[in-house]
């Protein structure tokens, strides 16, 4: 029907793949893809062949064998008779611990420093500038090693507490030593016990226990927060209808705090204070020197970058916004929380994701201070004692990749929520 308007059909010639601009880019891409696949194939087959000729075929069986080494920091039960897979799991938990706590602390310090750097107070602004420049211009590794050296070389050893040369802080509840800091540990006298999970799977490698006490406390806490949300919504409705907002903060605080405190009391919460016995402090929670050095160094370092991101985010909001808000009669605190921050967040979050990823990956520097993260267990001792370099490194890369993808997807989801909704 449309034959009249069609251009005369050109016959396809091979040369057109190169000379015809319509096809050229496709040709190049296909060629590059083929070259890439051949290259990858060559690397993989070369690796396989060489490993085979060394008699070292890829084999993950060693993961089920007993690890035979001890790990100092274990968030869950572990003995040297557990498997290499479990040692890796213990390491993974240690990585996650320092990554999560690091991200939290870095964000808190970063926001604080970033906002203060914009302060009109000259001194405060300068001090924050010095902080940012000093921290981000020295490699993380140096900060970690430096902190570790300070802890081991300057703080008192546990035996100094015995001889009375050093004393515990905060009314004798906290001991700061060169092996780490010991703090009181919360314990329940009427504990509900634990639920055991994943027992018997993969030689018991991934078994863990969930504290029922914790679940109950969390449920009560979340329940309180939900109810508090309901109270807020009711207040919103009243305000919309009458223009007057009922005072609810004491009610909202009460529904969160009171039931939680009550449950804690029911469970018989008390604190066990660390005590020096023999060579070391016993009882209480032991924050090891390696953990403290790594956690603090990573947090302070990353905080310097986050501070800059926060500052950039706030400065990206045009001055007209705050002036308009002020003209509407909002107080400066409310301008920040209702007008500036919600908009600044959109600028802040994408680069913040990269900082979280950086911190998590930098946590593998743990090895410098002997913190037993996944690089220290799976990529360190297990790799070395079993000689399974390739298997361990492949697993390690896969694990870091998974953690990073998880972090970015959570943050992207959050970004999606706060971003400008176009109507």
């Amino acid at each position, binding site marked *: 029907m449309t034959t009249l308007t069609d251009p005369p059909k050109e016959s396809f010639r091979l040369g057109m793949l190169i000379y015809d601009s319509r096809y050229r880019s496709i040709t190049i891409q296909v060629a590059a893809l083929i070259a890439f696949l051949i290259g990858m194939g060559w690397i993989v087959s070369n690796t396989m062949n060489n490993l085979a000729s060394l008699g070292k075929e890829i084999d993950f069986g060693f993961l089920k064998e007993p690890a035979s080494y001890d790990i100092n920091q274990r968030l869950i039960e572990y003995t040297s008779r557990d498997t290499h897979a479990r040692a890796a799991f213990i390491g993974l938990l240690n990585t996650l611990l320092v990554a999560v706590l690091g991200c939290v602390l870095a964000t808190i310090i970063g926001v604080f420093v970033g906002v203060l750097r914009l302060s009109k107070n000259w001194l405060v602004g300068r001090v924050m500038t010095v902080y940012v420049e000093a921290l981000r211009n020295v490699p993380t590794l140096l900060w970690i090693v430096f902190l570790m050296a300070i802890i081991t070389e300057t703080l008192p050893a546990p035996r100094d507490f015995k001889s009375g040369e050093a004393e515990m802080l905060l009314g004798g509840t906290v001991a700061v030593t060169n092996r780490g800091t010991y703090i009181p540990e919360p314990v329940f006298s009427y504990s509900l016990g634990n639920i055991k999970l994943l027992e018997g799977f993969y030689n018991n490698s991934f078994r863990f226990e969930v504290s029922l006490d914790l679940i109950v406390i969390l449920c009560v806490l979340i329940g309180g927060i939900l109810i508090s949300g309901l109270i807020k919504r009711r207040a919103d409705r009243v305000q919309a209808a009458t223009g007057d907002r009922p005072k609810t903060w004491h009610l909202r605080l009460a529904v969160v705090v009171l039931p939680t405190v009550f449950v804690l009391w029911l469970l018989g919460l008390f604190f066990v204070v660390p005590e020096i016995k023999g060579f070391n402090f016993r009882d209480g929670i032991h924050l090891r020197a390696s953990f403290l050095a790594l956690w603090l160094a990573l947090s302070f370092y990353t905080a310097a970058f986050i501070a800059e991101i926060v500052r950039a985010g706030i400065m990206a909001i045009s001055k007209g916004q705050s002036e308009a808000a002020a003209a509407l009669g909002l107080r400066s605190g409310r301008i920040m929380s209702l007008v500036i921050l919600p908009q600044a967040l959109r600028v802040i979050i994408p680069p913040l994701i990269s900082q979280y990823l950086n911190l998590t990956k930098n946590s593998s520097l743990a*090895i410098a201070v002997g913190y037993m993260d996944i690089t220290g267990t799976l990529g360190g001792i297990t790799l070395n004692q079993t000689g399974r370099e390739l298997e361990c490194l492949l697993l390690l890369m896969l694990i870091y990749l998974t953690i990073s993808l998880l972090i970015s997807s959570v943050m992207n989801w959050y970004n999606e929520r706060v971003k400008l909704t176009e109507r």
Partner: protein
Amino acid sequence: MKKTVFFGALAVAGVAAGAVAAGTLDDVKARGKLNCGVSTGLVGFAAPDANGNWDGFDVGVCRAVAAAVLGDPTAVEFVPTTGKTRFTALASGEVDMLARNTTWTFSRDVDLKFEFVGINYYDGQGFMVPKSLGVTSAKDLDGATICIQTGTTTELNLADFFRANNMSYEPVPIETNAEGQQQYLAGACDAYTTDASGLAATRASFENPKDHIILPEIISKEPLGPLVRHGDQQWGDIVRWTLNALISAEELGITSANIDELAKGTQNPEINRILGTEGDLGAMFGLDKQWAYRAIKAGGNYGELFEKNIGENTPIGLARGLNAQWKDGGLVYSPPFR
């Protein structure tokens, strides 16, 4: 450090087959230098002196092999390796041999595909503590914090020992002896554990060695010896028989002082065979007649190396003990040269 492991692993994957298949002897000759993996610094065994020259008991083995193969005991490139990097360095071909306080175990021999060519030091694992701690036995260490080098047999023995004795401890993992020393002296750990010889060497480098004691318990067998990669028999034989030549030399009374005299010919055919005046043993593995002569001349026989580097007249002060010749009640014993 991590980079080394990673590239090492890639290298194992990528080039190892080539490195294994080719004759290490030819490689070393073509290079004109022996790449020898040693520790990062353990006085008496392997440590650079003030002028940067490596010296020590393990270094002596490297120099003897270089002298046998290349005719020059100084033609050695010393590659410092930690407990963790040493095997990757050897497997990837970065070094031709390791002489680094390395314990001969089944899995290293069989699973990691290495070849231990002999034992140059019979050792066992011990503990060192500050005298002021008042500890006299390893059994008193319940609850102690202990510095331990990762990637070693000693780390596994430590776990076994405490488990078997139903005691608890807090391991502080460290990478090198220097780091362990620093942590131990700062009091970050109560005790330091490694091979007893390593403890003696470490203690000798302290400012006040007398303030520290080595506990009487020896909790393991640590036969330390040089090793090479699996699969190159000729190269393995060369390193093995160089070590044996040093040991036999002591047994037969060949020393660096009298070797030139003996090399003119003696009434003892075994001495003649070793020094190349009778038969041609060297040709059987691709070396000349004088290989063993040069190896012994490089630093003296086994006993001389021992006395000079770690013996009772050195600050390290180790007695021969198990490492005496078999004739003197020790375990050091070389198969015959014939």
